[in-house]
């Protein structure tokens, strides 16, 4: 089976989507955790997808995004970057500005963490 349709749905329909190794409760990789922590500091409403249960998830995600590494963070369907970029944008305040612009001023009010399983 293919995950591509579900992956595209998550990217398009989530305010903020992160494809990571592990779950928000238990990140299995330092970079996934760094990106997640930066999103939390910015108050982002996060939808998280664990890529570890099937290697095919990662392959199909990379085919869609053209981004070779995990994690990958999307805001309103647009790739924002991996851990380094998300951390850098959070530190400069730009991540919060982006969230405000694309999700509206009260983006943090809807703050939630949702884990989506593809398998």
């Amino acid at each position, binding site marked *: 089976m293919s995950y591509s349709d579900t992956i595209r749905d998550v990217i398009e329909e989530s305010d903020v989507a992160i494809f990571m190794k592990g779950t928000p409760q238990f990140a299995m990789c*330092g*970079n996934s955790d760094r990106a997640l922590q930066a999103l939390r500091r910015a108050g982002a409403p996060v939808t998280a997808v664990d890529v570890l249960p099937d290697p095919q998830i990662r392959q199909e995600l990379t085919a869609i995004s*053209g*981004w*070779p*590494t995990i994690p990958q963070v999307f805001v309103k369907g647009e*790739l*924002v*970057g*991996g*851990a*380094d*970029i998300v951390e*850098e*944008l959070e530190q400069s305040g730009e991540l919060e500005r982006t969230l405000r612009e694309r999700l509206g001023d009260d983006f943090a009010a809807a703050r939630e963490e949702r884990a989506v399983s593809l398998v």
Partner: protein
Amino acid sequence: MPTEPLRTLLEREFPDATELEVVDRTGGGDHFQVVVSAPSLDGLTLVEQHRRVYDALSEPLGDGTIHELRIKTRGTT
């Protein structure tokens, strides 16, 4: 893998680099940090800048030689 071949790949992609650094973060030859400043990065978004680094290193990234890569890029203006 040692840092030198990665450096060579990056120099090929960024002949204009004003700063180019490759660090083996753990000493194990598979966790690297690269820093690149180049005028050809001016005006690109961070995603576009990092894509150029990924393109330059696509081979060692693709075959798993690089297990983890941290990237810091800047334009020069």
